[in-house]
């Protein structure tokens, strides 16, 4: 009887230890599999963001190309025609009329080039900084009478130039989405933060989101996500009980603070 107890005891302890080892191996494999799946999803997400970024760049290039061709190109061609007709032997009345038309066209051409150039690199942002640039955008939209845009900011920190441009484009994208898709007549934006972190809140009284996943899949949102990702930032959609769209985002103010 003692023998059996001894064998049983030793075997039981051995099997318990063996069970522990097998549990460890199984659990470890599960953790590794989960890690691999997470890494794969992360890589797919990064690819998606990159694709969205490239698509957006191409779209922008096409738009600028079209603006230059249809706008500037056409006006310069017409100007050339007028200048061809400007001859010394033409009567002075006709000469003055042609000269005036040519000068007006040149003026329009310069405005078009200025507009395209502004789209490429906003002057207000360069000269006055992010807060003023956003305030400027808000004012311009409000002056149109179509929509009321309120912008509030107490932030007086410094921000890296690349991050500043990213934030400007994010706000541009949000305003563009708001105008095109939301049907809102009021937009509220707030910029806040510290020397290390910048926080931005956007709210409108439009139709809101059908679903968060649908919103995240849109090209505009993917662009925003991509830009935030570059700045190690994050965003989250916020619930709005009375309809509309609200989003909160934040990032560092520079690569050193990321």
């Amino acid at each position: 009887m003692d023998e059996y107890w001894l064998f049983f005891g030793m075997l039981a302890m051995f099997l318990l230890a063996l069970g522990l080892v097998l549990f460890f191996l199984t659990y470890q494999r599960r953790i590794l599999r989960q890690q691999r799946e997470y890494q794969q999803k992360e890589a797919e997400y990064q690819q998606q963001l990159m694709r969205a970024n490239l698509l957006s760049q191409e779209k922008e290039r096409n738009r600028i190309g079209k603006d230059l061709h249809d706008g500037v190109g056409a006006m310069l061609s017409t100007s050339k025609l007028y200048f061809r007709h400007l001859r010394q032997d033409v009567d002075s009345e006709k000469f003055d009329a042609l000269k005036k038309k040519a000068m007006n066209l040149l003026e329009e051409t310069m405005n078009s080039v200025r507009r395209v150039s502004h789209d490429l690199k906003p002057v207000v942002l360069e000269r006055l900084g992010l807060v003023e640039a956003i305030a400027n955008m808000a004012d311009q939209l409000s002056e149109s009478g179509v929509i009321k845009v309120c912008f509030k900011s107490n932030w007086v920190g410094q921000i890296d130039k690349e991050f500043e441009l990213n934030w400007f484009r994010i706000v541009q994208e949000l305003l563009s989405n708001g105008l095109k898709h939301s049907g809102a007549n009021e937009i509220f934006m707030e910029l806040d933060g510290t020397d290390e972190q910048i926080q931005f809140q956007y709210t409108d009284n439009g139709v809101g989101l059908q679903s968060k996943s649908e919103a995240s899949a849109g090209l505009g949102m993917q662009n925003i996500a991509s830009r935030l990702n570059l700045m190690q930032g994050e965003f989250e959609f916020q619930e709005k009980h009375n309809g509309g769209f609200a989003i909160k985002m934040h990032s560092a103010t520079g690569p050193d603070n990321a």
Partner: protein
Amino acid sequence: MSENYLIFAKISQASILIPCFLALFRFKTLTSEQRLIAMLVWISSITEIAARIKIDFYEDPNTIPLYHVYVIVSFIVINKIFRLVLASKLELLVIDLSLFMFLVFAIMNTILWQPLSQLNSNAIVVSNLTYILYAVLYFRSSLSSDQSLNINKNPIFWFNTGVLLYNSGAFFLFLILYNYLGDNRELLTAGLTLNQLFNLLLNGFYSKSLIIQARR
């Protein structure tokens, strides 16, 4: 003890030579943890050889004093191995404390309760329990680590498994057999046979841990 047991015991004891020679031939390519395992294996081999010489050439079957020393020295080496592979402050504290406490206990046990003429089963049982604790700590540490564990490139996994399996079985043997079942020779032989089997298994795991080309 029966003839069969003696043959089996000799085979089991001789099996330590496999990891011993593996460690010798591969020493230059071993990592620091593997070198400590090699040291442990050599210490075990030397103890076995010394015991064998004592029995065969000096015809003195009392090899128990050797095991008093062996239990302490092997504890120090195994403690060093786990100290290298465990990372958290709490785990290291446990390792250091247990070394100090075991050394004090083992020496006091030899002086006060189980002198050199008697097998130091108390110290052996305590060391078995401590090794089981170290092994569980290692598995826990591996699971909570954010680095993946490739068991084909990790010698400590095999060493740890061997230590856990052997000591789980041996703990019960030394606890029950020597402390509660007195001079029952048949039972002792049965228990020791099982122990030799576990010993073979342990040496197998030692060999595996020394064969592996570990990541540096």
